[in-house]
């Protein structure tokens, strides 16, 4: 069982590097929303690669400081992504306020850098889930782009709020090690679904254009 999730974990990391490449293929041909989403995928891939490198170079040191780059870059790019889709100015405003709040958090308690930040992660994820809900509502009556990705964002971010919020359990010695590892396994499974949905979006809506471009 443990091995299975190790393999799945590896798959998510390889995938997170591979699918940005697919998205990059159509980068110049598609609109701003697509470009922002591609940048988001690249940012996440970079975080994933650093996590993996960290594991090889410093196998015994905690890699939690990378977590802040993960959720902050996710918040910045997905906020812009939803701003493009929804065209509400206040998304940018709220995004700025949230980043300010997180910045203040890290200035006041610098050692936050070396553990999970449940409040920051929860706020950003809840906001993104809220945007995706708005986008669902918007797409009720007409065909909209990135609807599969929206399903993925909604599903993964909402489900994983609890996982990241309880992430600091890993630092608690009194909690048996299998609990955080169970959470991690669930997270990996959910993340894999999210990645598959991102891949499906590309395959269904953008593959044609990109392949045609290559045939030319």
């Amino acid at each position: 069982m443990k091995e299975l999730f190790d393999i799945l974990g590896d798959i998510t990391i390889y995938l997170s590097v591979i699918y940005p490449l697919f998205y990059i293929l159509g980068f110049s041909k598609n609109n701003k929303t697509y470009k922002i989403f591609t940048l988001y995928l690249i940012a996440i891939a970079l975080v994933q690669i650093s996590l993996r490198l960290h594991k090889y170079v410093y196998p015994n040191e905690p890699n939690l400081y990378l977590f802040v780059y993960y959720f902050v870059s996710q918040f910045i790019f997905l906020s812009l992504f939803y701003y493009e889709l929804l065209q509400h100015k206040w998304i940018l405003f709220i995004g700025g306020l949230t980043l300010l709040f997180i910045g203040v958090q890290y200035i006041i308690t610098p050692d936050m850098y070396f553990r999970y930040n449940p409040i920051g992660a929860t706020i950003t994820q809840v906001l993104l889930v809220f945007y995706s809900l708005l986008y669902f509502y918007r797409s009720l009556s007409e065909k909209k782009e990135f609807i599969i990705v929206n399903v993925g964002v909604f599903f993964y971010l909402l489900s994983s709020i609890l996982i990241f919020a309880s992430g600091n359990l890993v630092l608690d010695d009194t909690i048996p090690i299998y609990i955080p590892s169970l959470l991690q396994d669930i997270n990996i499974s959910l993340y894999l679904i999210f990645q598959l949905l991102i891949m499906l979006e590309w395959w269904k809506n953008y593959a044609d254009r990109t392949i045609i471009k290559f045939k030319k």
Partner: protein
Amino acid sequence: MVSSEEQIVGIIVIALGIVILMSAAIIAFFYFSRKKIIKTELEKASMEIEHQKEVIQSTLITQEEERKRIAQDLHDAISSKLNVVSLNANFLTEADISSQDTNTIGKQILSITSTILESSRKIAHDLLPPTFEKFGLKAALEELCDEVGETKKFQIRCDLPYAEGFLPPEKELHVFRIVQELFNNAIKHSEATVLQLTVKTEQNRLSLQYKDDGKGFDPDTKTLVKGIGMSGITNRVAILNGTLSVDSRPGDGVQLTIKIER
């Protein structure tokens, strides 16, 4: 006893399970609502297309009827009489013809050509009365009322406090055609003795009221309402973005009101 750690795990796993289920349910909810909304919109669109098809069809039928009528008019009033003229003119070319005969034939030709002229003027007038072009809707309606009154078929009361230029000319023409059609129907089908027409303008609204005391019809039997004349009126009212209400019962005359916002 269940250890506290196991309880924590249990709670977390259950909470996670609930959240995952909820998010799946919300996604499914949106997916199915979307499907339903799109389906109803499609139905609406196809209904609209169906309606447009009906409008086009009745327009085409009206057009054909109109052509038939014009062809008939041209044939009856002009071609056949021109035949007589040409026959008479042929007589004139014959060598052994007395000057008296020439005179008679000439007079005949003159009288026939003047009837033809009169008929062609009438045909043209029926197609589009010059009064409408020159003096506008109000004058054209007055003329129409006079003409219908002259038939002595019924008494006609026209009240036309219409502010000239209230509607653009192309819309005025629709109003004129509607009245023409109403009168046509009255002449052909109604057996009425009194017709009453009011066309008035108030601020931003034109209201047209028509009333007769003829045999009326049952508005529920669609065949009559959907007859060529009535569908022509309905279509024109639709083009003018107006509202049409018909009140009629068999034996009880027709009362019809059209309201058009500017």
